[in-house]
């Protein structure tokens, strides 16, 4: 369970998020939609504690993670797949995953579970992350987050720049996670990529969150999307 309660965030003097409130239930995929610069990535970083809150609270499974130092947030069970993957490029696949496992002291069985989802990574085991293809890098970024056995998973544009087959693979993993009871917060720009997996969709514009709708409603009426995103 992830709850954002009226968070305000600024980069220096420019306020980026204003009173953003969201909640994601276990076993649910909430998709955050908005244009570039609307504040989606900032929301993610604020949840992770990478940006200080001016006000508001972030609660994960009853723990106010916004009161914790940033490095304690993941241990509560928040896995983060950032935009642009941001792997530890000079480290090997194995080392990247080890860093993920370390967060909640996951044993070999956790790793085996993750590798079962991404068998390709086992083949690339001692390769340096920066030498992987784009799709493999995205797999590794996702796998790294799954290694900490998250109860909340944040994914920021996981399909950016990927081939359709790769997109499909990532989408399936997200679905699997939802089915295992993980609360998934997904940021996407590609509406079609979202609508097929999301349970609910929240729109964000200029740092404020607008309405949150069931994905069903959007699938039924595409005009809502166009109204908010102008595509």
């Amino acid at each position, binding site marked *: 369970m992830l709850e954002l309660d009226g968070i305000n965030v600024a980069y220096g003097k420019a306020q980026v998020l204003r009173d953003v409130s969201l909640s994601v239930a276990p076993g649910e995929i909430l998709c955050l939609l908005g*244009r570039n*610069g609307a504040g989606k990535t900032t929301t993610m970083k604020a949840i992770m504690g990478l940006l200080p809150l001016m006000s508001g609270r972030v609660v994960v499974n009853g723990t106010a993670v916004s009161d914790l130092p940033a490095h304690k947030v993941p241990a509560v069970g928040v896995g983060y797949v950032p935009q642009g993957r941001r792997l530890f490029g000079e480290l090997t696949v194995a080392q990247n995953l080890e860093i993920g496992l370390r967060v909640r002291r996951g044993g070999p069985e956790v790793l085996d579970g993750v590798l079962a989802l991404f068998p390709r990574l086992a083949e690339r085991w001692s390769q340096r992350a920066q030498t992987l293809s784009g799709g493999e890098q995205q797999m590794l970024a996702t796998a790294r987050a799954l290694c900490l056995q998250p109860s909340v998973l944040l994914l920021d544009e996981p399909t950016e720049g990927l081939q359709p087959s790769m997109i499909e693979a990532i989408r399936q993993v997200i679905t699997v996670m939802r089915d295992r009871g993980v609360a998934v917060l997904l940021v996407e720009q590609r509406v*079609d990529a979202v609508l097929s997996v999301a349970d609910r969709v929240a729109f964000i514009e*200029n740092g404020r969150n607008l309405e949150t709708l069931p994905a069903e409603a959007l699938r039924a009426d595409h005009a809502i999307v166009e109204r908010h995103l*102008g595509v």
Partner: protein
Amino acid sequence: MTLLSTQGLSRNFDGLRAVHDVDFDLPEGQVRALIGPNGAGKTTFVSMLCGRILPSSGRVMFGGKDISHLPAHRRINLGMAYTFQITSVFANLSVFENVALAARRRVAGAEVAPVVNAVLGRVGLHERPDQNAGDLSYGHQRLLEIAMGLAQAPRLLILDEPTQGLTDQEIADFKALIGDLKATTTILLIEHNMSVVMEVADIVTVLNFGEVLAEGPPEAVHANPAVQAAYLGTG
């Protein structure tokens, strides 16, 4: 007359073909939109036009001159203006000073202020010349970017996703602004917002995986199933 053209323009990053063998012609006075999915190579392509990135191979011609080997500032001085995709204003300087820096490329002394004020008026930032650019909202920073482009009175204005983060009203104003500029300036526009593209562009070029996928009037491109597939990812 062709203002800008490229021949076989390519760029690789560590084996990734960001832009591949692009031939591109932009006649004087046209508004051209460049569209394509994320990662299609749009920004790399325009970066090579204005010299921020050097091509791996190919040529860039501007006003009949081969500018492939000119450094960025020389190209700008030939009459190009470039606005950044990610807002890149001078955050610690005032709005006025941001635009004045651009305006001083062509005017000096007492002539700067009127130019700046006029440009700020055109984009709707005339009420806040003294504010620090970094304190503006994201949308206003984008408008400031556009204002800096306008202040240079360029022959070719390259706008990289200018409407990102703008409100509906601001987008409407932007469209009107492009309509005004058409008469005097050639415009190359990278844009995601299809309504903007459909309304302002004369011709649309679609990039996908670093190559030109389609080119033509907006309606034709919009109707092109290959473009639909690539752009919306529904393939």
